[in-house]
C-alpha cells in the first residue's frame, strides 16, 4: 500500500536534487489543455510527458506545464518546446508514443523530432 511515509521519502530525495537544480531549468515543455486539446487527447500526452521527464532523468533540465488554447485547434494535441537561445519547436497531433520519443530524442538527446513538427507532420 502507498502511504504518506513514502511521500515523505520522496521529499527527502527531492530536497537534495532540487538544491542542485537551481536555475538550470532551461527547457519548458508546454501542452495546450483547452477544450479542443482535451477532446483531441491532450490528457494522456501531458501525463506521459510528466512521467517520461522523471523516468528518463531530465527533470533537472525540463519542466512540463499547461496552457490554454494555442489557437491551432485542428492540430491538437499541440506541444511546444521552449529552450533558451533556441527557436520554439511546435509538435502537432501528438500521442503518448510520440511524446515518449520527443523526451528521449529532443529533451534528452538535444535533437528535435522533425517529422512531428508543425511544418512536417503528415496531416
Amino acid at each position, binding site marked *: *500500500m*502507498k502511504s*504518506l511515509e*513514502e*511521500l*515523505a521519502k*520522496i*521529499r527527502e*530525495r*527531492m*530536497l537534495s536534487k*532540487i538544491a542542485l537544480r537551481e536555475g538550470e531549468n532551461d527547457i519548458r515543455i508546454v501542452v495546450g*489543455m*483547452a*477544450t479542443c486539446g*482535451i*477532446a483531441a487527447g491532450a*490528457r*494522456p500526452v*501531458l*501525463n506521459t510527458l*510528466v*512521467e517520461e*521527464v*522523471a523516468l528518463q532523468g531530465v*527533470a533537472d533540465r525540463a519542466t*512540463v*506545464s*499547461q496552457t*490554454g488554447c494555442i489557437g491551432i485547434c485542428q492540430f491538437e494535441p499541440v506541444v511546444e518546446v521552449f529552450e533558451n537561445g533556441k527557436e520554439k519547436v511546435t509538435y502537432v497531433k501528438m500521442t503518448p508514443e510520440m511524446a515518449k520519443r520527443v523526451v528521449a530524442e529532443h529533451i534528452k538527446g538535444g535533437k528535435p523530432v522533425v517529422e512531428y513538427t508543425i511544418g512536417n507532420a503528415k496531416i
Partner: protein
Amino acid sequence: MKELSLNILDITQNSLAANAKNVEIVIDENEKTLRVTIKDDGRGMDEETLKRVSDPFYTTRTTRKVGLGIPFFKLAAEQTGGSLTIQSTTESADPINHGTLICALFYKDSIDFTPVGDIVSTLCTLIQSLGNVNLVYIHTFPGGSISLDTSVLKKTLGEIPLSEPEVIMWINEYLNEQYDNNV
C-alpha cells in the same frame, strides 16, 4: 468527449483560470444516478456570462469567442435525462463569498450515459497545474469511497511542489491503488 472525466478536467480548468484558491470535485454515485459537483471560490460569473455558457448560441454584440466546455458537459448530462445547474456569485457582488458551483446529474441506465473513464488521469493532470490552489476530491459509490486532499499532501511535501514529476507519479499510483482496492 469520450469520458466524463475529460469534461471534469475541462470544467475544473475554468475554476483554476478564475483564480480559485480552493476547488472541490465530488462524484456521488448510487445504483441509478451519478452526480458530479464542482465547486470553486474563484471570481464567479456575471448574468451575461451565465447565459452564454448555458446556451452557446446566445450572443450579444460584445460576445467574442464561444466557449464549449460547459455546453458539452450540459449536453452529456441532458442526453441521459439528467440536468446541469450553475450557481455563481461574482467577486464584485460578494467580495468574500464568491465562486461557482456546477452540478451535473446523470442517469447511468441511459444508453447515452458516458462512463467516467480515467478519473485518476484527470486528477493528476489537474494537480500538475494547481500551483497554490487546494484540490479536494471525493468519490462515493455503493460500498465505498475514495478521497484526496492536496493540502494534506502539501503538509508532507513541505517545500517540494506537487507538480514534481515523481510526486505526480506517486499520486497516480496512490489513487489507482485506492480504486483497485475498492472494486
